[in-house]
């Protein structure tokens, strides 16, 4: 099963099991979803529940909030996180605030799915990663499925949440093949997952960058370095326990984030590790992020702008420092 098929399977399952669930967004119906995630759903569920919208991000996200307040279980698809900036007001000022601001009277059980990330040569207005902006906001839950099982399972788990949950699907993952996903497989929506065990360094990543981290770990293994790879999965609230226990074990941490380094998610992660495991660290936390430029169109420049396995390998080796490197005959 491909990642996009897993999203579709999750959507279909949710729509079949709960009449309050409906999908709304640009081109989710007749077009089948801009990433083909909802292909065929219009035929099965009809235009009321697979609801094409005008290009009005602010209004249809706001309407999703209103529908959730009105007792429905909407899934709003925003074509990409870049477009979601047109809907920042309803997400940040309404969905995230209303429970607290109303003294606990109103909650917004809304699921917002959006594609994120670069790597497909679609240039500076379709390639950015703003997960950290949303993860900054109290009242939101932010998740990022990196595997086919999570693509289906996290959607179903998000629909059981009482609060607004944003699911970031990295666009490079949609065609990824990930084997079968059993229908009844439940996933946890609070924990990070150790995707590869290791003892020498911890690589923290999420979304498509998990796969770059795993490929870096493969290469490191050939060099005799055993990197542990943690898939963050849930960006808010962060699973500090899993992150810190891995770092305490390996004493080295490398954060991989496709967003820019400055003032971003990777800075928060690094600060948390410093606050929670300072005395266990053998070296400063290292970061592999995108270059501080709008993502450019040509492939060689786009590749150069993004975190790549080679840079992750280099960062791990630099972090664990000369001691390990000497042991493996690299100096």
């Amino acid at each position, binding site marked *: 099963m491909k990642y996009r098929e897993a999203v579709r399977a999750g959507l279909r399952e949710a729509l079949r099991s709960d009449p*309050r669930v*409906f999908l709304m967004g640009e081109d989710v119906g007749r077009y089948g979803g801009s990433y083909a995630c909802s292909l065929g759903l219009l035929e099965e569920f009809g235009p*009321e529940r697979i609801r094409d*919208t*005008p290009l*009005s991000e*602010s*209004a*249809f*996200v*706001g*309407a*999703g*909030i*209103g*529908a*959730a*307040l*009105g*007792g*429905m279980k*909407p899934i709003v698809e925003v074509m990409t996180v870049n477009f979601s900036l047109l809907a920042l*007001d*309803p997400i940040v*000022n*309404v969905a995230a605030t*209303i*429970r*607290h*601001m*109303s*003294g*606990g*009277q*109103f*909650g917004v059980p809304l699921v917002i799915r959006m594609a994120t990330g670069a790597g497909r040569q679609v240039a500076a207005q379709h390639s950015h990663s703003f997960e950290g902006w949303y993860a900054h906001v*109290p*009242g939101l*839950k932010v998740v990022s499925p990196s595997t086919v099982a999570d693509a289906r399972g996290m959607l179903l788990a998000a629909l059981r*949440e*009482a*609060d607004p949950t944003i699911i970031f699907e990295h666009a490079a993952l949609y065609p990824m093949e990930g084997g079968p996903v059993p229908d009844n497989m439940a996933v946890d929506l609070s924990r990070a997952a150790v995707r590869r065990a290791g003892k020498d360094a911890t690589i923290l990543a999420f979304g498509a960058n998990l796969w770059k981290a795993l490929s870096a770990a493969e290469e490191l293994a050939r060099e005799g370095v055993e990197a542990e790879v943690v898939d963050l999965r849930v960006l808010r609230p962060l699973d500090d326990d899993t992150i810190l226990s891995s770092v305490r074990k390996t004493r080295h941490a490398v954060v991989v984030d496709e967003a820019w380094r400055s003032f971003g998610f990777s800075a928060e992660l690094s600060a948390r590790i410093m606050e929670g495991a300072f005395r266990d660290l053998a070296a400063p936390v290292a970061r592999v992020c995108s270059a501080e430029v709008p993502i450019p169109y040509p492939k060689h420049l786009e590749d150069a702008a993004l975190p790549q396995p080679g840079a992750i390998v280099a960062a791990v080796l630099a972090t664990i420092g000369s001691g390990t490197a000497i042991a493996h005959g690299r100096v």
Partner: protein
Amino acid sequence: MTPAEEDLKAVGREHALDLLRRMMRIRIFERKSAELYSAGKIRGFLHLYDGEEAVAVGAFQAIVPEDAVVANYREHAHAIERGVPLNSVMAELLGKAAGTSRGRGGSMHLFDAARGFYGGFAIVAEGLPVAVGLALARKMSGKPGIVTCFFGDGATDEGEFHEAMNLAALWKLPLLFLCENNLYAMGTALSRRQAQTDIALKARGYGMPALSVDGQDVLAAEAAARRAALAVRRGEGPCFVEFRTYRFRAHSMYDPQLYRGREEVESWRARDPITLFAESLSRAGLLGDAERQAMEREIELEIEKAACFADGAPVEPEEDLLKDVAAGEAG
């Protein structure tokens, strides 16, 4: 009898006196609020409805308990007309735990889930998409009642207004738009903001019926709201009413009002909705001076009680600060 007197006879003395009492209640409530603001008991922003009372009182005659109400930040009148107890509204203004929103929202964020009062949105026009969603939920779930949404002429500057109007009309939602056109968005006059100042025309442009009515005349406001609400209840899609009104006082508590002349304000004050209505009642022989004074004293007493209650009420304990940021978080 003059036509106005004939109208009064038609609505009946009891109803007419009820309308007057309701308008006076709002006026006196806000007079007290302003006093408490000057005394430092209310802080932050306090947007008064002074001069616009006939709009809320007239419109609420067409709204029934099963309907939902969405309002903005100048919403004391709407909360009161919705039946939110004066004690809770006043306590909210004073930031007390007995307030509508546990004191967390203050004047701009009144919410009452039990009464279908969805607040309390203080970013101009953001309530409109929420109202669209609430109406969509009603339509999809077959829940009875309509959604009513109050907003000012300032909201019609925003893209969200246009997006929401389009969605409501496109999806034929049970939604009544109630525009309180007081001619100013803070300090900028409508004619200095919009190329086309006929607001009802904009609604017609989206294919929905729209009425414009004198917002200083409570009977006219009531009649227009009833007519429009009836059409919405018939399932014919959304309707729009523009109430032409004026805010006598500053945008929030104090501003030097450099943006409008004293003469303009005075000419509108001559059309004070309460004075106009009370005078026509007495001309029709339905209200004597003594009776009006007694009514005023009775309301003043009621408001004093609410102010006393709010003043003496406890604040939310600091340990509850993080409560209700998310469901189930911190108790």
